[in-house]
């Protein structure tokens, strides 16, 4: 059951009409919806074209990556435009569903589509070299360090749900956009810092990544129970309870996928049996 936020009243975060000057009724306008639709279609189109064209010179790009990319981009679309995005502005449960789609599911699907590998094999050699030099730089290494990515990811959420930020986010369009971008970017960085699916220039040990994943998953489930116990400012108790449970179980399901994929990578690299060696990751560029 959806529990909408009380509009207006004290304690609700949806109080635009109380602040005339700062009102943001055009959070989701018709034009914005169309712009998003075009961007999403362009993302799918460019990816597909690049994969098809480069498949003539290089190894054929497998079908599951096209599907993974499309599914990931559609998750982003559902979170930023359309009915779910609209209702996430009013209902905490919908907000939490957006959080799961944009911050957890979309990043995994997109990582499995190997966009960096595709980009490198699409670009002309000189630009590809420049890009790979950039990917090997210290700044990029720091960003995809598992610890930093986990702090960035889980810390951002703690900040959002335990301070006034959540309330403010629904009043300022810019803050709303920045947070949602952060949610996706941090989720993506975290995913690729734990799972080496795409090209990875600096690798950390399995143990390091496993411990980081466990602590981050724990941080996520502690936060979801904390939301249940102490609703964020302006969120009614029942909505916080349902949203907290959605975050707990939904997040748990996605973390299970991450853990399974990480352990499967360990198994493939550790196993002595020749059958498992056949499926070692191959380079798709050469």
């Amino acid at each position, binding site marked *: 059951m959806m529990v909408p936020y009380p509009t207006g009243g004290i304690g609700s975060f949806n109080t635009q009409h109380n602040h005339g000057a700062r009102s943001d009724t055009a959070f989701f306008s018709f034009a914005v919806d169309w712009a998003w639709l075009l961007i999403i279609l362009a993302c799918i189109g460019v990816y597909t074209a690049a994969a098809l064209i480069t498949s003539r010179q290089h190894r054929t790009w497998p079908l599951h990556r096209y599907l993974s990319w499309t599914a990931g981009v559609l998750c982003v679309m559902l979170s930023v435009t359309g009915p779910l995005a609209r209702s996430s502005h009013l209902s905490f449960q919908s907000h939490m569903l957006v959080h799961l789609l944009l911050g957890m599911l979309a990043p995994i699907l997109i990582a499995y589509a190997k966009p960096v590998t595709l980009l490198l094999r699409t670009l002309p050699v000189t630009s590809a070299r420049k890009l790979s030099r950039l990917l090997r730089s210290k700044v990029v290494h720091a960003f995809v360090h598992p610890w930093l990515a986990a702090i960035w990811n889980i810390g951002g959420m703690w900040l959002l749900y335990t301070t006034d930020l959540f309330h403010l986010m629904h009043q300022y369009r810019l803050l709303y956009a920045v947070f949602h971008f952060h949610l996706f970017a941090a989720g993506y960085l975290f995913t690729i810092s734990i799972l080496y699916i795409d090209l990875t220039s600096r690798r950390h040990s399995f143990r390091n990544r496993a411990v980081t994943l466990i602590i981050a998953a724990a*941080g996520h489930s502690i936060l979801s*129970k*904390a939301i249940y*116990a102490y609703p964020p400012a302006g969120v009614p108790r029942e909505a916080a309870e349902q949203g907290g449970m959605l975050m707990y179980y939904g997040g748990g399901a996605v*973390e*299970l996928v991450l853990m399974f994929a990480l352990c499967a990578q360990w*198994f493939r690299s550790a196993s002595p049996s020749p059958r*498992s060696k056949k499926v070692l990751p191959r380079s798709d560029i050469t």
Partner: protein
Amino acid sequence: MKPIESARGNRKEREKYASRNLWTGILFGLGLVAFIDEVVFHQLLHWHHFYDKSTKDIGLVSDGLFHAFSWFATIASSFMLADLHGRHAFWLSQWLGGILLGGGVFQLYDGIIQHKLMRLHQIRYNVDIRPYDWAWNVIAALMIVAGLILILRTRHVRTHAEGADS
């Protein structure tokens, strides 16, 4: 194809990986008890609660860490089990001993520290809780004892076998 369970053929491998067999069992036991707790007591019987108002904050932290760790332990130990089979190094009694020990230790921690000290949740509500607590913790203690006996017996077999070899 090599025989998988021929005691002579894989004894060396089993002894080489004895402690990995034990740890695989311990992790799996921890995950198994957490799984039974979640599925049987939370979801099927509805005896346990997602959150009850007397939970201390440290209880939330402990629960979150164990929740994440137990899921990881279940998955990781399953892959470790497959890896041991691949090396023809699986040792049933060492693994079973690990399951009983790991499961028992987690259940005892859950029953005494999480339920009683951190008041995370109780086994059941609106009943006299004492018989439930006793049953929970005694079963945990029995699992630990049974696990230790199994592990020590395999250790005895190992030293005995080594003695016979030399």
